[in-house]
């Protein structure tokens, strides 16, 4: 029986988490401690860090990548990955941007309505992008990393083809409400991020859908034999991931008041992965709280070092360096914590 068990474990050994399991509560605790230490460190060294303005600017910056991190996280919980998330965001924003321009003459005086319609179109595009991923992965059976690698190229290709590689601008004023306004001093993007985060938390932790997602991520064969419709769950997961990407795309579009096919393409996929892994997501396990904490941690590092190194050449790039180091250090601490207790 022993041997059988080993075989089963190997069979389900995930390529991204070989012999590697997280304890979720541990990760949330660890991230909280790291976050508090960082905030205190920056708060003490730079007075300006703990001001309303700084905090608000961080709250403006982190939602877009945080939403993509959530989209990555849900794919990783079903033992998948969504490399196309950033290009889904760009393509969705692009379609919304095009409809803003094309439909503008029909909505003179009703710009606000037009913006809402454009947002819905963006979400629709996100659903379509997610559905293609779901089709390739759930129905055809392409490994997620390959399926989303291919769809990433396709979505980016469509964006380039449609825009001719140019940046779209000149959208109605109403668009920037989402990107620039605050409610009671809290930036709207951040409110959207938190609301989405809470919804995701409820969906994953307390609904049958979330339950099935975790079961499917743990053992797809047993899920199938327990009557879970793996194809449909996979499809829904990637559609949800696509929607999260589209919302991120909308926020980017309204913050920059422009749409470009290559926005964030160089760094956002990697950052979304960083956030998801740092947040403690692994197949079948992981908490949304961890993902939110991971998002804040990266943002604090980025803003904090920017301030600390103000005036130093290339100071804004120190964050990349420190992200990499802190990410690896947290993985190592996590490992050592588990080993000490004989779990890892």
């Amino acid at each position: 029986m022993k041997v059988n068990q080993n075989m089963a474990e190997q069979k389900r050994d995930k390529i991204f988490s070989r012999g590697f399991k997280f304890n979720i509560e541990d990760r949330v605790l660890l991230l909280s401690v790291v976050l508090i230490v960082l905030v205190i460190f920056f708060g003490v060294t730079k007075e300006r860090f703990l001001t309303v303005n700084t905090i608000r600017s961080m709250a403006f910056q982190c939602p877009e990548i945080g939403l993509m991190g959530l989209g990555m996280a849900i794919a990783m919980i079903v033992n998948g990955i969504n490399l196309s998330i950033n290009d889904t965001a760009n393509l969705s924003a692009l379609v919304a941007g095009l409809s803003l321009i094309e439909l503008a003459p029909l909505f003179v005086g009703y710009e606000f309505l037009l913006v809402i319609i454009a947002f819905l179109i963006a979400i629709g595009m996100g659903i379509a992008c997610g559905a293609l991923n779901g089709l390739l992965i759930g129905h055809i059976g392409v490994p997620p990393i390959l399926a989303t690698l291919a769809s990433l190229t396709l979505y980016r290709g469509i964006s380039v083809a449609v825009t001719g590689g140019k940046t779209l601008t000149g959208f109605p004023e109403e668009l920037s409400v989402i990107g620039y306004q605050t409610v009671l001093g809290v930036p709207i993007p951040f409110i959207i991020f938190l609301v989405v985060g809470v919804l995701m938390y409820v969906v994953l932790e307390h609904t049958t859908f979330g339950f099935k997602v975790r079961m499917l991520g743990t053992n797809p064969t047993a899920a199938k034999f327990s009557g879970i419709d793996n194809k449909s769950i996979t499809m829904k997961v990637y559609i949800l991931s696509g929607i999260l990407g589209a919302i991120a795309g909308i926020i980017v579009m309204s913050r920059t008041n422009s749409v470009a096919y290559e926005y964030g393409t160089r760094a956002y996929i990697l950052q979304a992965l960083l956030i998801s892994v740092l947040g403690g997501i692994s197949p079948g396990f992981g908490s949304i709280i961890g993902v939110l904490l991971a998002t804040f941690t990266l943002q604090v590092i980025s803003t904090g070092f920017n301030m600390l190194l103000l005036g130093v050449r290339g100071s804004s790039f120190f964050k990349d360096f420190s992200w990499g180091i802190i990410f690896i250090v947290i993985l190592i601490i996590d490992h050592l914590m588990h080993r000490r207790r004989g779990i890892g």
Partner: protein
Amino acid sequence: MKKILNSHEFVVFLILVIISIVIGLRNPLFFSASAIFDIIRGSIVYCIMALGVLMVLISGNVDISFVAIAAMASYSTHMLLLGLGYTGGIGLYLVIAIFFGLLVGLAMAFITTQFNLPIFYVSLGYQTLWYGFNLFFVGRAMNFDLPEGLVGYYSRFLVRVKDPVAGETGLHVSVIYLLVIAIFIWWLLKYTTFGRGLYAMGGNREVAIRAGFNVKSITYLMLALSGGLAAVAGVIQSAYSRFFNPVLFMGQDLDVIAAVVIGGAAITGGRGSVIGTILGVVLIQVLNRGLIFMGVSAEWQKMVVGLVLIIFVSIPAIAERRQGRLKYFPVSKEK
């Protein structure tokens, strides 16, 4: 012979030939020596990097940090040599960059083996780390200041041809590096316990350990080699393009992995070959350049490549589904 005809590599080769013929029929210029040399030159650097990726994929791992290692090794070497007033050729560049690449690869192997972390996870942090290192500690700007020995490197050809459109072009000398590296990696994979250990790890890691393969030292050598190859690719690419770039290859990590997978390497490990990898890279190059020859405008290229990729990853999955029912119970049947 039948074995060769059934192999994945042969299928890729066949597709390559068919695509080339189709493009060539539309535009005979595609078969000109200059076009072919151009494709070869465009493939060399990616082939060198891809061979490092190949080893990692065979072992059942995924690494996306090689692009950052290439950038760090080449850019740091350049800034260092520039500071020292070096005026010589590519030789010293390669030596120093390879040293950096090996070192960084070994450090990564230390982290993954010592703390039992998946290579993919570590490579996530590693990629940001080394790009960040380049940009913050070494320099932010592209550097066009080439030492004398590198000036004109981009047009150092083995065989020269005159082309009415492109002017003088030819077969670039760096093809020799690729040949040497490819034969070396092929030999490693086929004839050493290290190479067979990579396949064994990818097939079943537990059994590989039980069989006596030293999985740790295999991981060290694999990541060191992969780092070294990335460094070589970084230097050659920079010498081609006549500038050194702190964010060289950024965002191209997944493209290289895609090429290796098209060449028949399994993303889940245990399968892959040198020939297949080279064919995979060349196929993508032919597709990219071929579309220009077919008159497809540059903007539409990426989309076409995306569609081809989707078809490419779907076909094996569909084929497997078709056999799926019979494969359900692989026990031999009672007669």
